[in-house]
């Protein structure tokens, strides 16, 4: 794997701030750093409202970035594009079009020079891939929620995106449909090797589906808390994964991370004043951030690194 493939997606010091009429802008996401290898599936997990979807929307180019960089395959993201396809929790299908028509809509825009037959083949191929070969001419009202979501997934991957962005796509589905659709997506990704970010609240889903799990701290000023590498081989089956002891270790790690985050919300932090020594701890009243420039901070790079988007990069 080339260096570019190992850093196929780079999110560097990403910040999203919203204006606050009563004071300083509120940073919902602050200093979010993440790299994603080509073909990896990264699940993002964190408490409700921590900023997971905000990060995904910035990757999609649907929400402007306040500062920082998002780079996909060497190109800085500066707006939405067909190279990054999004599947939302709601399928958002056009009700007057069949499943075939909904998928064809994007295919026509992405393959303007393809022949009619080629476009037809593409639509049928991807609807078949998501298990809707027999439902191509059904309207959304004639399909279950799971089937509609399959159309949404087919519509996204038919664009042959460099990156697939899934924002809680199983959130509205019952557990059996959810598991079925999880396996469908894993099968597709095993074939298509699309680099994917999946936002989820479900711990089991995060472990089962991911190559890596990005755990986010609570907002405001949310960032990556840690990244967990999931070593299960692909293709993987639910039975194999869930019978592995490591699955339970990883699951426990995620749950305790979330529990700990719940207990340490930003508002719970004590003021950074000198601490009483009868507690055995002394901390100078200064904030670390105010001293950061003296430490050298941003202009330093890890040894053996070369320049990257805004910072040093690892080799």
């Amino acid at each position, binding site marked *: 794997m080339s*260096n570019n493939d*190992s*850093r196929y997606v*780079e999110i560097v010091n990403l910040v999203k701030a919203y204006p606050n009429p009563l004071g300083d802008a509120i940073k919902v996401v602050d*200093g979010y*750093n993440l*790299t994603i*290898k080509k073909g990896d599936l990264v699940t993002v997990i964190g408490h409700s409202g921590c900023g997971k979807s905000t990060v995904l929307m910035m990757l999609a180019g649907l929400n402007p970035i306040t500062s920082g960089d998002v780079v996909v395959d060497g190109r800085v993201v500066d707006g939405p594009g067909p190279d990054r396809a999004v599947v939302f929790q709601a399928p958002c299908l056009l009700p007057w079009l069949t499943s075939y028509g909904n998928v064809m809509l994007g295919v026509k825009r992405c393959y303007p020079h393809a022949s009619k037959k080629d476009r037809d083949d593409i639509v049928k191929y991807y609807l078949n891939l998501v298990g809707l070969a027999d439902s191509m001419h059904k309207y959304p009202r004639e399909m279950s929620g799971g089937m509609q979501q399959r159309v949404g997934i087919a519509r996204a991957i038919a664009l042959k995106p460099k990156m697939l962005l899934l924002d809680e796509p199983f959130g509205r589905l019952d557990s059996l449909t959810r598991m079925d659709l999880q396996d469908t997506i894993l099968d597709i990704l095993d074939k298509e090797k699309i680099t994917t970010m999946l936002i989820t609240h479900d711990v089991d889903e995060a472990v089962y589906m991911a190559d*890596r799990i990005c*755990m986010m*701290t609570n907002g405001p000023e949310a*960032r*990556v*808390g*840690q*990244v*967990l*590498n*999931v070593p299960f081989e692909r293709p993987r089956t639910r039975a194999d994964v869930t019978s592995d002891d490591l699955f339970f*270790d990883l699951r*426990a*790690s995620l749950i*305790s*991370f979330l529990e*700990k*985050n719940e207990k*340490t919300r*930003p508002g*719970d*932090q*004590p003021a950074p004043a000198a*601490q009483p*020594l*009868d*507690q*055995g*701890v*002394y*901390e*100078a009243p*200064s*904030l*670390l*951030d105010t*001293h*950061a420039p*003296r*430490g*050298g*901070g941003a202009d*330093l*790079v*890890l*040894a*053996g*690194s070369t320049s*990257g988007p805004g*910072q040093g*990069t*690892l080799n």
Partner: protein
Amino acid sequence: MFSDSHLLSPTTMTDLATATSTLLGAAELWRLDTDGSLSLDTGLYGSHHALRDSAADLRLASGQGLAGSALAAGRPRLFDDLASVAAPGRAQAAAHNGLSAAAALPRFHGGKITSVLVLFFRGGGDACGGAEIWSAGEGRFELALGECYHAGACLERFARISKYVNFPQGAGLPGRVWEHNCPELVPDVNASKTFLRSSGDGGRELSVGLGLPLMAGRNLQAVLLLLSSQTTPMARVHEIWEPSADDATTLVRRHGVYGSMPDFGHASDDLSFSTRNGGEGLPGRAAATAEPLLTENLDDLGIARRDAARNAGLTSGMAIPTVITDTVRYVTVLLW
């Protein structure tokens, strides 16, 4: 800001108060001689006489022994199997003294290694805690766990999970140390937002976490994490000193964790150390020379707290300067 919590839990306080042995058992400073070999400069052995005797008149070539291995690698190393790397007789001496792992940390000046600090860690018995080296993950802009030592069954699950964890810049304790190139102390890792690595039930015994940036010039080579447990703290006192904002030649305390020794902590209030004229006290001298410093002289801790140190039973002290582009930014002090 350092962390969300600066208070030790009552449990932590009690356990640290009754702790008599530290995970850090001995330390040595090896200097590079003009012939390219390493010779022992100073050592802190406490009652570990066998280890001290095994170092007498020893010279280490590059690649030889613990310090020589770090010299040859040009980067920090951590060994949990001393027999495979230590100079002849030293692994047995360490084992005889209950020391089962060691870290070797090269110090760079002008792009070259000038000395190697070796830290020995206890094992067996009630030992619980760890030392970890976090460095660049392969092909990623993240820190991954490299060589590590986790003592005790209490950290079995924590150790098992840790090898799957990565930290981007700014994430977790290693990522924050990387972000600021600043040593950072977490008084109680279980209550801290800074220390988010967790593994279910594993790791609840941990108390103090110390992250040290290991620099080579202006580049961060790795982050060393020293993890204390309630039963066996890494050291009994952890301190970080920094140049005063008003006078860069005076070190003032930035952060201190004193566990069961609030008297010693109080004696440290308003204390400062000059770095002029060869430096004053343990941190001042380390800053003046920009080299790690080991001492058994309680006067080096500052006259104002010499008695408190004696009353607390402290016998050994170590100062590790964080040097960025030949400028000392911080001095981390460990006392035991």
